[in-house]
């Protein structure tokens, strides 16, 4: 049945080369854990991507209940966590996944660093990877405020003070992030929400696309 549907589409659109380009490529022996168990270090990049997918999915579902408004944010989070079926699990996935994605990304970075895999001709991919790292940190920072509880508020106040300490442009950066000179409030929350669900994920998808195109083009780095 599935084969027939596939053949029907393939006959018309010739999709086989498309997915072959994406999915069908050799895994060299030195990155295959079945040959050398120590090759599990090559999994961290893929695991980062896997957790990112979970983050995007669980985040999409959370916005079905969440409201980015100072009067309702905390209430809606409380409601979705305690009144909605599996709310605790879906929010838990997003909460713990946020930390896990940073851990996986850090391990991936360590592997690339200590294997020297960033060296010519892969310097550009290292640069894009570092940009992804910053985007991820930004996602963590902006997402932390959204539940609008005391911990979120004061963590953000500290974070904004750190941004403010930037030489010359610090005070402008702070106002740009907080939306107000002195208040961390209504405008801060909507800004952080917009950054968290539209701007940074958009940047992240673009950067990840570039990251993956480059690794397919250049292939994985050779054995040590």
């Amino acid at each position, binding site marked *: 049945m599935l084969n027939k549907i596939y053949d029907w589409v393939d006959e018309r659109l010739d999709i086989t080369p498309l997915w072959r380009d994406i999915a069908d490529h050799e895994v060299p022996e030195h990155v295959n854990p079945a040959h050398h168990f120590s090759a599990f270090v090559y999994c961290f990049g893929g695991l980062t991507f896997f957790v990112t997918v979970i983050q995007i*999915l*669980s985040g999409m579902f959370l916005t079905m209940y969440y409201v980015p408004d100072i009067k309702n944010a905390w209430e*809606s989070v409380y409601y*979705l966590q305690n*009144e909605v*079926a599996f709310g605790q*699990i*879906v929010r838990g996935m997003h909460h713990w996944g946020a930390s896990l994605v940073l851990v996986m990304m850090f391990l991936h970075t360590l592997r690339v660093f200590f294997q020297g895999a960033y060296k010519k001709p892969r310097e550009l991919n290292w640069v894009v990877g570092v940009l992804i790292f910053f985007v991820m940190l930004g996602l963590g920072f902006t997402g932390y405020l959204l539940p609008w509880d005391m911990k979120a508020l004061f963590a953000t106040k500290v974070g904004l003070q750190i941004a403010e300490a930037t030489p010359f442009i610090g005070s402008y950066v702070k106002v740009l992030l907080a939306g107000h000179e002195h208040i961390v409030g209504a405008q801060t929350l909507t800004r952080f929400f917009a950054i968290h669900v539209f701007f940074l994920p958009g940047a992240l998808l673009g950067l990840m696309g570039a990251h993956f195109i480059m690794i397919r083009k250049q292939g994985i780095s050779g054995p040590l």
Partner: protein
Amino acid sequence: MSKERVSRRQFLSYTLTGVGGFMAAGMLMPMVRFAVDPVLKAEAGGDFIPTPKKVSEITKEPVRVDFKFKQKDAWYESEVTETAWVYKDDNGKIIALSPVCKHLGCTVNWNTDKEHPDQFFCPCHYGRYTKDGTNVPNTPPLAPLDVYPYKEKDGYLYLGKAKPRKEA
């Protein structure tokens, strides 16, 4: 079982699809259940809401009765006002009609159309209903006005959730 041998590649693709599907389902099930929760939530029983109207004051002439109740909309609680047209029919039975026009949902009034007195009239598209709420043929509405179930308690009128009636 067929006699055809399962090739190594087939075996791998079946097991990987199976395990992968199981893991994907484990991931997606909580999220989907989370999303469809409003559909599966049990609806609260139809409570009767007190109105400020004394049963003894209800006459044969329909009057507008506004009644308020607390509505809980997830994390948002508010006071909502609803309206009923209330009168006693010829047998002395209380009738409480919903003012929501069955055409496109405007609010109907009693006896405001001078050409057709003693009827409910909807100003939006000139829909009309007779006193018992039955839609007048050849006007836009296709069904009679909804009816509130009612109760009498301590001399006051209590109304439930308005229910639709069959087509006239």
